């Protein structure tokens, strides 16, 4: 025999029958409407979570028998987004004040844009209740608060218009006195995408006495400001947590970050750890050449490290790469004193004065003819000769490096060639291999 599940008659925590709010506080009414909406929907409490912001409204989750997440001021939407992204089947309801709305404004905008399937109830009592009645982003112009004694000079935020233009699926504005509120909250919760209700209400401790406010003034203010009420938007756009999964079905089951082994195929005669600096210009293939230099070394059974330095604007200025080759694992990865320094452009030269000063007779500077005169160093100076192999700007790094691989006998040139073929796009590799061929004639 099938037993019909019991109807849930309330989602309120009956051990906490009485709310903690001031007499007449609007939060009381909104929470009762929320309870009515939950009862209407008969949501599974286990599949439902109330995410509260801070402020008087932030105490609300303790009065319900559903899951609860009570986080930081203004950040409720971020936790709700994380919960929904991780578990799209959950009903996620955010309760936040107009204070939270202001401090967390960036999250509100993004939640609407993303159309994340959460429901946000804004308990909009036009001021900060908990901290003593200061003004918020929704305090009307002229509103008297603890922090705007002479009347608020700022313009109030139109929350509904803001989230509407940014793609919210369901938007409603009303007051805590609305009879239809349970239905509208229920509709918001069943909306797949982002839903927001801007619910105006009274803070009887502060905004009411400070402004001789009542229900009538509340409605009047909404009208004076020209803010429409009722359902303001219903849209049917893809909800983020589901769209994410749909977009990614194809990826499922593939191995994340599979290993990319590098086989030893050649032998290197290199005995001592060799520290190499390539100093050139951005856009001159310095970094990719350094990668090929390191990869070729690994094909030859050596250990390698590579560090690249370039300005944050990657397409202009200098580009300096450091490569260390060794028979053993490399610990210290800096190069204070290079064994080989390759200077191929003026931009590169500006970056290496310290290294030039540090180098001695046992080390070598390789330099293009145009810059040779500007180099002052104790190191051996070797000048490339391009008379028999003119190098274009683009092939300078590859050509000079290939020449050095051979000249300094780092490892077989075939390994460098193979590194270029393996690590670079086919058409670029073809160009670069031509430069390697030509490199024989420059040293």
């Amino acid at each position, binding site marked *: 025999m099938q037993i019909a599940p019991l109807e849930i008659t309330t989602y309120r925590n009956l051990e906490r029958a009485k709310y903690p709010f001031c007499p007449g506080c609007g939060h009381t009414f909104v929470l009762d409407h929320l309870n009515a909406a939950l009862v209407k929907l008969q949501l599974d*409490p*286990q599949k439902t*979570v109330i*995410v509260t912001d801070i402020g008087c409204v932030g105490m609300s*989750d*303790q009065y319900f028998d*559903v*899951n*609860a*997440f*009570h*986080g*930081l001021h203004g*950040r409720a939407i*971020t*936790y*709700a*987004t*994380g*919960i929904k*992204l*991780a*578990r799209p*089947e*959950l009903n996620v309801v955010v309760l936040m004040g107009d204070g939270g709305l202001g401090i967390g404004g*960036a*999250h509100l*905008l*993004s939640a609407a844009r993303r159309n994340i399937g959460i429901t946000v109830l804004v308990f909009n009592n036009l001021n900060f209740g908990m901290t003593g009645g200061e003004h918020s982003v929704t305090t009307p112009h002229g509103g008297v608060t603890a922090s705007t004694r002479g009347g608020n000079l700022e313009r109030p935020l139109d929350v509904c218009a803001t989230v509407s233009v940014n793609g919210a699926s369901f938007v409603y504005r009303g007051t805590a006195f609305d009879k239809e509120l349970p239905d509208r909250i229920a509709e918001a919760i069943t909306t797949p995408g982002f839903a927001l209700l801007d619910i105006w209400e009274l803070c009887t401790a502060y905004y009411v006495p400070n402004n001789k406010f009542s229900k009538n003034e509340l409605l009047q203010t909404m009208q004076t400001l020209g803010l429409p009420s009722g359902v303001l938007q219903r849209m049917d756009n893809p909800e983020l*947590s589901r769209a*994410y999964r749909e977009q*990614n079905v194809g*990826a*499922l089951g593939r*191995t*994340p*970050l599979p290993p*990319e*082994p*590098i086989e*030893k195929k050649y032998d290197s005669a290199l005995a001592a750890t060799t520290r190499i600096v390539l100093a050139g210009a951005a856009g001159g293939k310095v970094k990719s050449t350094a990668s090929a230099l*390191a*990869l070729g070394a*690994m094909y030859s059974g*050596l*250990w*390698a*490290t*590579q*560090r*690249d*330095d370039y300005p*944050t604007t990657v397409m202009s200025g200098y580009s300096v790469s450091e490569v260390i080759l060794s028979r053993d*694992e*490399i*610990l*210290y*990865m*800096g190069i*204070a004193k290079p064994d080989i320094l390759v200077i191929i452009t003026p931009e590169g030269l500006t970056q290496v004065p310290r290294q030039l000063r540090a180098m001695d007779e046992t080390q070598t500077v390789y330099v293009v003819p145009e810059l040779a005169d500007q180099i002052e160093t104790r190191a051996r100076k070797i000048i490339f000769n391009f008379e028999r192999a003119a190098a274009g700007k683009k092939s300078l790094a590859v050509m000079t490096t290939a020449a050095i691989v051979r000249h300094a006998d780092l490892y077989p040139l075939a390994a460098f060639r193979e590194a270029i073929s393996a690590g670079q796009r086919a058409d670029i590799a073809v160009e670069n291999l031509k430069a390697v061929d030509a490199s024989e004639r420059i040293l």
Partner: protein
Amino acid sequence: MREFIDGAEAIARGAFAAGCNFFAGYPITPATPILLRMLRELPKTSGVGIQGEDEIASIGMCLGAAMTGAKAMTATSGPGLSLYSENIGLAITGEVPLVIVDVMRLGPATGGATTVSQGDVQFLRWVTSGGFPIIALCPSSIAECYSLTQHAFNLAERFRAPVFIATDKEMMSAQQSVNTDAFEKIEIINRVAAPAGGEFVPYQTKKLADIPAFAPIGGEQLTRLTGSMHDERGMLTKKTSAVNKTSRHLWQKIQAHRDELEFTKLDAQEGAATLVVSYGITARSATEAVRHTRAAGKLASSLIIQSLWPLPKRALRESMRGISRVIVPELNFGQYRQEVERIALSLDPRPEVIGVDRVDGELITPQEIEELFGRG
């Protein structure tokens, strides 16, 4: 098997090995490579990766996801860590498992985006208000990026707490050949699940130092998380006894397990009078300095710290016993040296503690450390 990878790749691989299935972050040099890898790879294991609208949202999303049972990670650098601060407090008090990578760059403020530093060491220790303990691991090799990331997830699960991986620009972006066959796969630890049936009391523990069992949002039992001072049911309280209990629990749950949280590598040489204490990228120069010193026929000892916080007091004290000089090289103004000095004060004979501080964006060279050995 040799591979040519950077620390970001190894941290991401470690995260997958540990079961990470949620990542949210905001682009910032030098942490972006971790973000991009996680976003690209997570869909393959039905995980979720997202770029938040800012760092506050990113860590917030991680906290939300973690409370549904996800193993979450985020990665940032100094400016972003500053924005994480308040939510790190939430993770501590709400007891949320979370792994946070801090790729240190030169600070303060925007500082040097592409410049190496170890300037966040004390910032990590006191990263949020209230003065509660945190756990921070610090790899000094690609292999440790992989193993310590797994440990970070395990510790986050075991202690229901945020766990930091403190690393730096060079560790993340320098490519290195590594033998990935030697990567250590760590056995996965999961948070202790609440027993089925009966009412679940979210923050109930038998002893102050115990870790509360976990029930996910959306699971069989209703659960609560709160960032407010709470009783064991997760309800706001100002009751002195409950406040005292929660505060002391948050303190004890880490402090009482300090022995479990000490990760260090000691390479002591019989009779050595000088010890170098180092961590992260700087440990590599220290290791080289020790090798050179020994090769020159002199004695030298080394202690590498893999768990910066809580301070591995036992290992520090034991390694410093009988030592007359301790060298602490750091890419800051001696942030860890002051901890080592405090330990030195408790020893008799008391070793002299000297630092090598570099704040110019360059790595400390092995020679800078070696010279100090030589003077011993």
